[in-house]
C-alpha cells in the first residue's frame, strides 16, 4: 500500500469570510510497510491531512493516490478505500454508540457486508489486540473507563482489517501506562501484520521510539521529512516552528557541553542511557 499525495491543497469554508487555508501544496510519498510519524504544532494541519487519506475530506486541488489509484476519482470505490485505510480519530471514544462493546466493534465489519462468522472472528481478534477481555464484550461502552473506551474505539477501526492504519493522537489524555500499552500494540501490529502505520503525535519520545520516518508539518506545509536521526538533528528548525527534539536528546546535548563524550544524534531514552553508562564506566 503506497500512498502518494500530489500538490494537495485544502481550504476550510472556501469562498466565505471565514476561509482558512489548512493545507498548501502537499507532496509526499509513503511506502508500503512504513511506520511514519507526523508531527507539527497545534493547528498545523495534521488532522486535516490525515482525513484526506481516506477521502473524508477532498482536496480543493491536487490528487491522492493509493496503490496508484486516485481515491477521489470514483465515488463508488469510496467504501473499498475506507476499508483499506483505517482512520482512528482524535478522541475516538466519542464515536461509540451501540448497546454493547461487541456490537460497537462489529459496526465496521457489518458495513463491509461480511458474514456472521467472519465478523465474530474479526471483532474478537481486534478486541484481543487492544487488550479488551471477553468478559467486557457484553458491557455497555459507556460504562467503561476513558482508556478502555479508547481501546474499544480503536478496535472498531482495527476490525475493518485496514492495510493502512492512521492514528490521530491515539494516546492523548491517557495515563503513561495506558499510552505505552496502546502504542506498543500499534508497534506489534505494524510488525506482525505488515501494515503501513501513520501516527500523529505531540510526543517526540513516542515518535522517536516507534517510527522509521518522520514528516514535519508547519502551517499546512511539509517542511521536513526524513529518518528520525535526520529530523532530530535539526533542533533549530524544529524549535523555530514550535516543536522540539526529545528530552533525552536535550540531556545528551547538555552532558556533551559539560564534557561528556557522547555521540551526536542519539535521542531515545534507551540509547542515551546506554551511552551515558558506558561513558561513566570509561571514566
Amino acid at each position, binding site marked *: 500500500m503506497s500512498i502518494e499525495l500530489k500538490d494537495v491543497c485544502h481550504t476550510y469554508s472556501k469562498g*466565505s*469570510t471565514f476561509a482558512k487555508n489548512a493545507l498548501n501544496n502537499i507532496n509526499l510519498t509513503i511506502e508500503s510497510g512504513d511506520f511514519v510519524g507526523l508531527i507539527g504544532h497545534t493547528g498545523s494541519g495534521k488532522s486535516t491531512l490525515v*482525513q484526506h487519506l*481516506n477521502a*473524508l475530506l477532498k482536496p480543493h486541488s491536487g490528487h491522492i493516490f493509493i496503490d496508484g489509484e486516485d481515491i477521489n476519482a470514483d465515488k463508488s470505490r469510496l*467504501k473499498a478505500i*475506507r*476499508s483499506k485505510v*483505517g*482512520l482512528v*480519530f482524535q478522541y*475516538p471514544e*466519542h*464515536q*461509540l*454508540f*451501540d448497546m454493547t462493546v461487541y456490537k460497537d466493534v462489529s*459496526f*465496521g465489519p457489518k*458495513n*463491509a457486508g461480511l458474514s456472521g462468522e467472519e465478523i465474530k472472528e474479526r471483532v474478537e481478534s481486534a478486541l484481543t489486540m487492544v487488550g479488551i477481555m471477553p468478559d467486557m464484550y457484553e458491557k455497555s461502552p*459507556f460504562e467503561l473507563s476513558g482508556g478502555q473506551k479508547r481501546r474499544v474505539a480503536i478496535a*472498531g*477501526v482495527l476490525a*475493518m482489517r485496514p492495510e493502512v492504519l492512521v492514528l490521530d493522537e491515539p494516546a492523548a489524555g491517557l495515563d503513561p501506562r495506558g499510552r505505552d500499552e496502546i502504542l506498543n500494540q500499534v508497534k506489534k501490529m505494524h510488525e506482525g501484520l505488515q501494515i503501513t502505520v501513520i501516527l500523529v503525535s505531540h510526543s517526540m519520545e513516542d515518535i522517536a521510539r516507534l517510527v522509521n520516518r518522520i514528516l514535519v508539518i508547519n502551517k499546512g506545509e511539509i517542511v521536513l521529512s526524513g529518518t528520525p536521526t535526520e529530523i532530530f538533528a535539526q533542533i533549530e528548525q524544529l524549535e523555530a516552528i514550535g516543536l522540539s527534539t526529545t528530552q533525552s536528546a536535550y540531556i545528551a546535548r547538555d552532558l556533551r557541553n559539560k564534557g561528556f563524550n557522547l555521540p551526536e544524534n542519539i535521542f531515545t531514552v534507551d540509547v542515551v542511557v546506554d551511552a551515558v553508562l558506558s561513558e561513566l564506566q570509561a571514566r
Partner: protein
Amino acid sequence: MLKVTIGQYYPADSFIHRLDPRMKLFCTMAFIVFIFFVNNFLGYAMAFVFIVTVIAVSKVPIKFLLRGLRAIFFIVIFTAVLNIFFTAGETVVLDWWIFRITLEGLLNAGRMALRLVMLIIGSSILTLTTTPIQLTDAIEFYLKPLKKIGVPAHEIAMMMTIALRFIPTLIEEMDKIMKAQMARGADFDTGGIVKKARSLVPLLVPLFISAFRRAEDLALAMESRCYRGDVGRTRMKQMRFASRDFAVFCVILVFVAMVFVLNYIAALYGIW
C-alpha cells in the same frame, strides 16, 4: 458539508451593526407587521426601497444574503403554487383539465412570495448584523415586564443565548462523528427511508451523549464562577440607546406614516 446561514452573524462595522439591538429588534418586528398589513403596490415598493437601503448600509454582501435565501426557496415556490391554484377568482387566465388559474390567484401568489422573501430578508438582516448575545439581551429587555407575572425572563434569555451559542459547536461535533462513522464504512446517503433512519443511530447517540456532557460541564463551569441567576446580576456591556437609535426610530415613524398617508390618498383617488 453543512451550511447554515439563517441565524448566522456577519461580522462587519456598519451603521446597522452599531445600532442598539433593542431598536433593531423593534424595527424588524415593525417591518414584519408592516409587510403583512400592506396589500397594495405602493406599500411593497416602499418596503422594497427600505430593505434595499438597509442592505446597502449594513455592508453585508448581497451574495451572502441570497445564499441564506436558497434554503427557503422551495417554501416560497410551494406557497406561490398553492396560492395560484387555490385562490377563487373571476378573471380566468387559463382553464385546462382540473387546473383553473385566475388573475387574482396569480396576484395573490406574487404577493405571498414577495412577503415571504422580504420577511426572510428582513429577519436575516437582523441576525446577520446582531450577535446572538446582543439579540438575547434585547429579548430579555422586552420580556422584563412579564417578570411581574412570574415569567423567568432572564432564564429564558440565558437559555436562548446558550442554545444559539452551541448550534455551531453541535454542527461541528456532528460533522466529526459523521466522518468517524464513515471511516468505519457507514453510509448516510443511500437506501430507503427505513435504512436511512437506522443509519442515523450511530450519529445521534454520540451526538446526544456529547450534548449532555457539554451541558453538564457548562453548568458546573457556570456554578463554579458563582452564576446564580438573575438576582443581583449586573452587565459587563450595558445597552444604551444612542442618538443614532433615536434618529432611526424617527425615520421609521416618518416612513410608516408616509406609507399610510400615501395609501389613504391613493385610495381616495382610486389609484391602485
